[in-house]
């Protein structure tokens, strides 16, 4: 019975909707945007937070850390804790009973591999022998690690990821047993992992932890000394709860702190948490959920819009419903018919929404892939079963949200009332008020979103237009890491630097070459320093600045001139006479028009006092902290890289091409040149600084793009919303307009009446929205939020006026059509309305 009438309702619904094309188009568009947005965001939530690992019983996998209750959240790794030393991992593992298995790992590490004379750098993991066993994944070729492999001094072994096995090892089925060099030492490949496995984050190669970093005995350890302490995970015994595990590890932590005060006295507590939480921090997870909430809010707004349109149609159909009622339809029957129509619209909206979601996820994945830092491998942004269930649920909810109230209220009027009041009851007055308030709220939200988006886009544009102080596209840079195995001592590394400098400069392809500590030619160190002749009362009085270690010829390689004094030389060695070069801002700040040469400065580090450095030169300003830093001013100084002690392990080499050659073509020449110096040393992160800066900004570009998309969607929704409300109200007031015209109102006056009503909603919405954002940025969260903005005034009036202008335009257009319709009311028809 019900099914029968449902089918009939669907048929009638389709016919009615087809007749009402504008409504149909707008409603499907609006719901499509809302459902599409929610589906996209839920896919992201599903990939990052819900789906998790595909291992057997992933819910048993936990991360373990020791906690210093007195330290900040940040120092406690956002509540996850740290393992202070490798020895703590061993002691915990021996004493605990909650886990059936435990493993330690260092993830995202640089591992240098030479295979068939081809050096390569990989993102790899140093792992204890149980890492793969604990998650229940085994190599598809060869064997897993054993405890013996992990012993310091054992023969070095490695397991390859599927992707690099195919790409760099020719998918050789006989790969097991072949020799490679890892970080300068001979090693053997023992296995290959299955496809799509990059555990724990995006690692492509694994080698035993203790074999590379032998754990030091307790007696040799100091508090805070880095000992390549691993991150730790465990698999819960069946039947053991998270709380029980936490209780056990907190007790163990207390024991460790008491027994080993030298290393552990501060770590008196512990934290056991689901492993997934360790990889996606609490904050990040909250952000992802928060965005889902925001998108659902947008969906709700979409529903409200469709609801408004339904009200408008219901007012027009009052007569039809009254007649149906008079002919015997129950109220429930009428509600069902109207709801069925809403459902038909929502289903079309859902289809459009899923298409939009596919499209936007494609965009999102492509954006993620341009990020310089790889995303965890288990994030797979696909629309799967759970996502579709979610979509179906929100579609049904959208049907009810957008259709129930209009259906209910319009089915209420009986025939007699309809005759008496011309289809308007007191309920419609209430509905009127509600819809207007909602539209105001929506305009406020849109105004806020658009202002935030404009600020963010302006920020990103400012970041892209930055002047780094040198031509970023005129040099080529690459990173390399000198590993313990190949370069065990400071002297060995210094020796390499000198050889490299000589070799590169002798190369006919390069006009000049230099080295720097700057990571990807973007970030470097920052901290407090002291200048001679200044008195500092407290630690906090010491100024902050940027510093960088560079080789000789660094400035000339970047195309800069020494302004005063001299460049570094190979003879500038910290152990003989520590020197420094300052930039122009530094010199001007402390010595004004006088010379900075001969003055002294040093890095402030109370734990490990640094030597005073004599200033030997002044160079032009450069941006030393990439495109993000806006707090520190441009004050900075340079120290000699080749004479530093200890000699750095990781550094960036720079080459400038001969005149007439493009810098971005230097890649092969540079890796060949490095191979001539050390054939086992791979270079990575290669490219022009211009490219690095561009990549570094891609995250911000994604955010700006998302903001723009949200802004546009909100824009469309508020336009449609305003249109819906005005349309509704004009339809309702047809008779009123007719009477007013009969009493002498001309078209212009009627037009003004409708436009004024829209204008009020707009003005209130704008004031609320702009005021809200201004309050947010200007007062409430100034410090926190200003970091998001880059050289943009959060209260820039031009941005506020531009957004207000844009919204006014759209509001004017969306009110224009209903207002025009109001002026076209034929008084004859209105007056005859009985």
């Amino acid at each position, binding site marked *: 019975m019900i099914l029968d009438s449902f089918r009939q309702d669907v048929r009638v619904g389709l016919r009615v909707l087809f007749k009402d094309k504008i409504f149909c188009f707008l409603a499907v568009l609006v719901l499509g945007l809302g459902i599409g947005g929610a589906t996209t965001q839920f896919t992201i939530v599903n990939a990052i937070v819900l789906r998790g690992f595909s291992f057997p019983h992933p819910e048993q996998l936990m991360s373990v850390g020791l906690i210093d209750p007195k330290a900040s959240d940040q120092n406690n790794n956002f509540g996850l804790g740290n393992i202070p030393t490798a020895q703590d991992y061993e002691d915990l593992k021996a004493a605990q009973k909650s886990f059936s298995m435990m493993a330690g790992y260092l993830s995202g590490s640089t591992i240098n591999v030479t295979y068939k004379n081809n050096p390569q750098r990989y993102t790899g993991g140093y792992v204890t022998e149980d890492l793969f066993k604990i998650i229940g994944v085994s190599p598809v070729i060869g064997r897993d690690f054993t405890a013996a492999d992990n012993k310091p001094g054992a023969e070095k072994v490695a397991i390859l990821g599927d992707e690099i096995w195919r790409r760099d090892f020719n998918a050789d089925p006989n790969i097991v047993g072949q020799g490679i060099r890892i970080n300068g030492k001979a090693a053997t490949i023992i296995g290959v992992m299955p496809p799509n496995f990059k555990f724990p984050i995006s690692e492509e190669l694994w080698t035993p932890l203790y074999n590379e970093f032998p754990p030091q005995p307790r007696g040799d350890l100091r508090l805070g000394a880095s000992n390549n302490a691993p991150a730790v995970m465990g698999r819960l015994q069946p039947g053991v709860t998270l709380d029980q595990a936490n209780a056990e590890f907190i007790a163990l932590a207390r024991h460790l702190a008491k027994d080993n005060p030298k290393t552990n006295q501060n770590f008196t507590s512990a934290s056991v948490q689901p492993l997934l939480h360790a990889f996606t921090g609490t904050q990040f997870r909250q952000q992802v959920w928060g965005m889902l909430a925001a998108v659902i809010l947008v969906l709700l707004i979409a529903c409200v819009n469709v609801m408004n349109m339904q009200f408008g149609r219901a007012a027009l159909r009052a007569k039809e419903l009254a007649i149906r009622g008079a002919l015997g339809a129950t109220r429930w029957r009428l509600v069902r018919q109207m709801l069925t129509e809403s459902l038909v619209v929502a289903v079309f909206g859902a289809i459009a929404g899923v298409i939009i979601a596919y499209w936007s996820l494609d965009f999102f994945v492509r954006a993620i892939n341009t990020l310089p830092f790889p995303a965890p491998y288990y994030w797979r942004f696909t629309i799967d079963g759970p996502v579709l269930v979610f979509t179906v649920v929100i579609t049904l909810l959208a049907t009810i949200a957008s259709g129930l109230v209009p259906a209910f209220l319009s089915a209420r009027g009986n025939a007699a009332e309809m005759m008496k*009041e011309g289809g*308007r009851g007191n309920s419609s007055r209430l509905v009127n008020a509600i819809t207007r308030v909602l539209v105001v709220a929506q305009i406020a939200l849109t105004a806020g979103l658009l202002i935030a988006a404009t600020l963010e886009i302006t920020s990103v544009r400012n970041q892209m237009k930055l002047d780094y102080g040198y031509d970023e596209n005129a040099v080529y840079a690459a990173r390399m890491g000198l590993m313990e195995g190949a370069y065990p001592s400071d002297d060995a590394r210094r020796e390499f630097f000198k050889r490299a400098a000589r070799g590169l400069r002798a190369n006919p392809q390069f006009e000049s070459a230099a080295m720097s500590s700057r990571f990807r030619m973007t970030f470097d160190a920052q901290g407090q320093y002291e200048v001679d002749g200044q008195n500092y009362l407290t630690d906090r009085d010491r100024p902050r600045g940027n510093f960088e270690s560079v080789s000789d010829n660094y400035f000339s390689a970047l195309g800069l001139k020494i302004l005063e004094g001299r460049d570094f030389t190979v003879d500038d060695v910290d152990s003989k006479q520590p020197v420094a070069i300052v930039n122009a801002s530094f010199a001007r700040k402390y010595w004004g028009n006088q010379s900075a040469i001969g003055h002294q400065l040093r890095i402030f580090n109370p734990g490990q006092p640094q030597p005073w450095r004599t200033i030997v030169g002044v160079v032009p300003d450069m941006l030393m902290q990439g495109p993000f830093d806006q707090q520190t001013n441009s004050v900075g100084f340079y120290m000699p890289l080749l004479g530093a002690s200890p000699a750095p392990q990781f550094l960036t080499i720079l080459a400038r091409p001969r005149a007439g050659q493009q810098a971005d073509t230097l890649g092969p020449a540079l890796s060949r040149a490095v191979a001539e110096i050390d054939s086992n040393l791979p270079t990575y992160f290669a490219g022009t600084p211009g490219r690095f800066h561009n990549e570094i900004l891609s995250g911000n570009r994604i955010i700006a793009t998302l903001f723009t998309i949200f802004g546009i969607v909100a824009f469309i929704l508020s336009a449609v919303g305003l249109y819906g409300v005005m349309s509704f109200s004009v339809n309702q007031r047809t*008779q*009123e307009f007719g*009477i*007013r*015209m*009969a*009493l*002498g*109102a*001309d078209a212009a*006056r009627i037009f003004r009446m409708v436009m004024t009503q829209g204008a009020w909603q707009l003005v209130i919405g704008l004031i609320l929205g702009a005021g809200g954002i201004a309050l947010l940025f200007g007062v409430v969260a100034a410090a926190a939020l200003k970091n998001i903005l880059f050289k943009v005034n959060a209260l820039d009036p031009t941005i506020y006026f531009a957004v207000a202008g844009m919204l006014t335009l759209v509001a004017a257009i969306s009110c224009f059509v209903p207002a025009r319709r109001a002026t076209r009311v034929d*008084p*004859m028809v209105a*007056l*005859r309305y*009985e």
Partner: protein
Amino acid sequence: MIRLRNLERSYPLAKEKFFYVLREINLDVQEGDFISVMGPSGAGKSTLLHILGMHDHGWRGEYFLDEAAVHHLKPKERATLRNEQIGFVFQQYHLLDDLTVYENLDIPLSYRRYSKSERAALVADMLDRFQIVGKKDLYPRQLSGGQQQLVGVARAIIAAPKLLLADEPTGNLHSSQGEEIMELFRKLNDEGMTIVQVTHSEKNASYGKRIIQLRDGWIVNK
């Protein structure tokens, strides 16, 4: 005052066929006249009145109001003329539900060139004259039908029209209330206002000076 010559009104029926509601209407109304239009339902009485009231523009023929040739005027000029000369009383009163009696009376003034103080004075006058001062802050639904129509008449004449058109002004009223309205009309007519009313009742028609019979769109006798 009014001169109609060969006035016709038709609605398209099917392809190239027309349904004539008014045919060859020739009518003269003198200044100070009080005419009652009568006829069976569907005869075209309301149609005629709405044409006279310049709500309807889809007619053919000649319509002179005083010196103005309405059939030559543009819609805007017609609106101006109507605002200056004509008041209209509706069978269903057509007061605006969301406005008080006072505000309803003020509407026509707000659409014409009156200053704020003039408007207040005129509305106050009208409230006095119709003895509805006590009701000025009530909404239409709080009034009886007769009181509503009283407000409707007051609203029609507040801008001092020379011509008052009324389409069955007493159709929805008890006879005693109807009489009250008719007395009012007679008084207005005595003061010099020209009135054209549509009515079904012989009694109401007798208040007028002249009766026009409409049948199937034709004027049958004078």
